């Protein structure tokens, strides 16, 4: 067996994007994802609840030599600042790893995937600012 074994889970009790998903339910989703993809699932690390803290995620990606990547429920769990997000993705790629996003069913494995991800996030942000209704008269 390779030195790298499966995906390390990442969960958070904070709300992310439009979602608030209890941690046990996130764990179930991650475990199911790994089972479907036939990947070994590593117990998830649970992010701190303080807003804007990514201490656990930053710590987790410091050394991914034992894993093929990390898995989390959604792209909205990544840092909100694009620059920080890109830097984080790059650190994951530098270790030969990928980021698996269950809800979006995306694997972020290289710079091209980051562009797609960024596009999605920008569109989502713009769409949320669009008016819900327009007066027609």
């Amino acid at each position, binding site marked *: 067996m390779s030195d790298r074994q*499966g995906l390390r889970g990442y969960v958070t009790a904070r709300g992310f994007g439009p979602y608030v998903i209890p941690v046990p339910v996130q764990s179930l989703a991650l475990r199911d994802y790994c089972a479907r993809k036939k990947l*070994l699932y*590593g*117990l998830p690390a649970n992010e*701190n*609840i303080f807003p804007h803290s990514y201490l656990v995620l930053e*710590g*987790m990606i*410091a050394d991914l030599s034992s894993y093929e990547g990390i898995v989390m429920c959604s792209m909205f769990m990544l840092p909100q600042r694009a620059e920080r997000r890109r830097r984080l993705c790059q650190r994951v790629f530098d270790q030969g790893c990928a980021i698996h996003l269950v809800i979006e069913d995306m694997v972020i494995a290289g710079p091209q995937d980051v562009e797609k991800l960024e596009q999605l996030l920008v569109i989502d942000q713009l769409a949320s600012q669009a008016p819900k209704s327009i007066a027609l008269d």
Partner: protein
Amino acid sequence: MALPETFQSTKDASLAEEFLGAAYVIRDVEDRAALDELRREIVIAACRAINHLPPEDDGAFLDNIHHLVPVENLNALRLGLYRELNAKPWFRPTYFKLATHLVETLVGNELAMQNRINFSIQMPEDRTSLLDLHADVFAGETPYQVVQWLPLVDVRGTKSMFILERPKSDKVCQRLKDFSEGGMSALFDVVKPDLRWLDIPYGKVLVFSPNVLHGNVINDEATTRWSLNCRYTGLFTPYGIGERSLGSYYSPITARPVTRLGMAYRQPGGFEE
């Protein structure tokens, strides 16, 4: 002395002082026969799960489970045992019996107990069962809880868990923000020299406050760690976030008669001026 001037016995005061100093205590379990029987039930359930005959030496069987179960099947075994044992009506009461006095002295005698007791099985060199440096309060759990952590085999060094004792943990947690870039792994590097690797032989139980930093690393001992953990909090203390509150995570276990009477009391009404 017939007329005491303090409310605590000397023994309880010394336990409280030790706990407040380090944030943990290790004691003999309060019912050794119950521990042996509980472990036997776990061993029998594990044997059933892997089609193995019940062993003569339960400790040796658990210590060497990595020779019988590949790491790919470890989480399935752990979850199977977690579900099976937590469905037994005796499991939580027996677990509580192992440290009743200890928990009641530290937390109170009206308690809520975690709904399910967690299983940890950490095989040598296994990287899938890591619980990095953390404090449970950081994830939204109540700061008013303790963890009863029970090894089913002798544990020491990396086969055990580590803890950062209270004054040091409190101090470093105050400047958590300074580690935003490097994250918890940078924090781990800073606190590593001060970590206590708990040496807990089978037959003893650890009770600690998960408000302090703690966790585990890859087990580089030759044998597998088996441990159980479960949380208790005072029934009438603030709970954590929704998924860690009464009902979803905790349930009352020792509500006292006066509390029951109080809860049942209904003020007479219907009067008119």
